[in-house]
């Protein structure tokens, strides 16, 4: 029997891998030193551990260890990349290009610099979530300083054509930043091959601890600099002050090492399970997969179960921890802006569920999930007036609804 509830929300966060935890523990108690203490062995020990982790992380993404700036997570990394570049390159221009399906940590940071005088172009992806390279090129002006496009999307898993985007950036002498939080450790990412100048990522999405992340900042061809957003002791080459979270960083490093060793096998295993889940659920009528299916992270699927409301469905599958694009609980009652950007009608967006598989997801769990979801969808459809109308052949688009 499988242990309940089953965690299928690995795009929100992941559990810490026991091997990661084991690596971290000594740095809370025994080797608790401040990595910036230069005068004694406690400090040296901590610094050594940080240096080693920096190497482990750099190796995973193909950069030099000096190019990794530790932060508190991807939210901070995104803030530092955008605000830091906006300030540092103010002489060059004030125009940024990003996409409507980015994480709030990008979109709200862009809104912030807009108030300070930046101009932002928000590209709209097509219905499968990919941006148009043509539109990207057309958006570039002589004032453009940076393009920021996420690697893999957190809600639907769509992977953008990163290399093609960075080629365009490079050709035009523009910096390229990517929020790779969902991609790192799941698929191969190489800052040189991919042509990335700045990159945000976070430990807790890849079986490391919460509250630690990194911003990769290119040092050569071109040499990139960001204005610090946190003033203080000048840590991290002056770009991010603050005593380093040594145990967190050690865990982050270990998580990267494990990911590097196990990524290929893990991606194959998880995409097979994900495909199994999708295939089985698609046997039901009126079930849709959201976002591009070819260019997709291996461990996630976003599906809409038409005529069933997402929050109601989540209540029905209470043994599964998943998330929904329906935001009925939020004050706005607006469904997911990412799904809306893909052109999904509000009713399908309200009917969506994201399943995020992870390292510890088993086949038994997926088998259980399939039956559980099928049962709940069937039961809720029997309760749904929309399903009944659909079955009677009534065109729901023709009805004048009494929206409230």
């Amino acid at each position, binding site marked *: 029997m499988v242990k309940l509830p089953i965690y299928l929300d690995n795009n929100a966060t992941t559990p810490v891998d026991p091997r990661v935890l084991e690596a971290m523990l000594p740095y809370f108690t025994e080797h608790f030193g401040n990595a910036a203490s230069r005068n004694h062995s406690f400090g040296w020990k901590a610094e050594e551990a940080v240096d080693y982790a920096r190497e482990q992380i750099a190796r995973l993404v193909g950069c030099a260890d000096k190019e990794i700036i530790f932060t508190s997570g991807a939210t901070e990394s995104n803030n530092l990349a955008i605000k830091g570049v906006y300030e540092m390159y103010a002489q060059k221009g004030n125009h940024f290009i990003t996409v409507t399906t980015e994480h709030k940590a990008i979109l709200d940071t862009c809104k912030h610099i807009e108030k300070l005088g930046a101009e932002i172009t928000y590209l709209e992806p097509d219905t499968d979530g990919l941006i148009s390279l043509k539109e990207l090129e057309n958006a570039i002006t002589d004032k453009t300083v940076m393009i920021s496009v996420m690697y893999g999307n957190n809600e639907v898993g769509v992977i953008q054509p990163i290399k093609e985007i960075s080629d365009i950036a490079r050709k035009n002498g523009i910096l390229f930043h990517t929020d790779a939080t969902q991609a790192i450790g799941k698929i191969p990412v190489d800052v040189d091959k991919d042509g990335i100048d700045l990159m945000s990522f976070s430990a807790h999405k890849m079986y490391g601890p919460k509250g630690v992340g990194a911003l990769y900042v290119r040092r050569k061809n071109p040499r990139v600099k960001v204005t610090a957003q946190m003033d203080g002791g000048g840590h991290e080459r002056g770009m991010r002050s603050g005593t380093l979270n040594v145990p967190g960083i050690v865990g982050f490093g270990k998580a990267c090492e494990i990911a590097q060793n196990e990524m290929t096998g893990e991606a194959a295993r998880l995409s097979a399970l994900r495909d199994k889940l999708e295939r089985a659920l698609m046997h039901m009528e009126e079930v849709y997969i959201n976002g591009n299916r070819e260019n997709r992270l291996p461990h996630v699927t976003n599906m809409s179960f038409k*005529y*069933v*409301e*997402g*929050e*109601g469905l989540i*209540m*029905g599958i209470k043994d599964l921890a998943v998330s929904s694009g*329906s935001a*009925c*609980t*939020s*004050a706005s*009652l607006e*469904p997911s802006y990412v799904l809306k950007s893909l052109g999904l*009608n*509000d*009713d399908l967006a*309200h009917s969506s569920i994201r399943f995020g598989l992870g390292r510890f997801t088993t086949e038994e769990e997926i088998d259980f999930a399939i039956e559980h979801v099928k049962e709940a969808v069937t039961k809720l459809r*029997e*309760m*749904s*007036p*929309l*399903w*009944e109308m659909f079955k009677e052949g009534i065109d*729901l688009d023709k009805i004048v*609804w*009494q*929206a*409230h």
Partner: protein
Amino acid sequence: MAYSTKVIDHYSNPRNIGTLDKSDPSVGTGLVGAPECGDVMRLQIKVNDETGMIEDARFKTFGCGSAIASSSLATEWLKGKGVDEALTIDNMDIVEELALPPVKIHCSVLAEDAIRSAINDYRVKKGLEPLADKKRY
């Protein structure tokens, strides 16, 4: 956010799911909400023309657990009530009974609207004036 035990009970064992014949002159049908808003409720009553009592009530709801529970509860309360008495069911009674949190009050409003809409449908069928919309804003 945790659901109250009463919401869970109605959600897991909904009372009176189903469909009555729309064309029956003694049946009133209310369909409120919109798919784009994430909630649609259909509530039907069958009235005994002689006694004016609601003999049967059925619902189908597309919506969250609280919306399903609100409509399920509404059908329970409607059965056995007179049509005029049914109009006194207030959404805040539903909120109280189900212990709905503030963000879920609109689910109960929807149920009250559905009751009104079903009664109006019945009234029109009987050649009576529909009741004026209740203003909420």
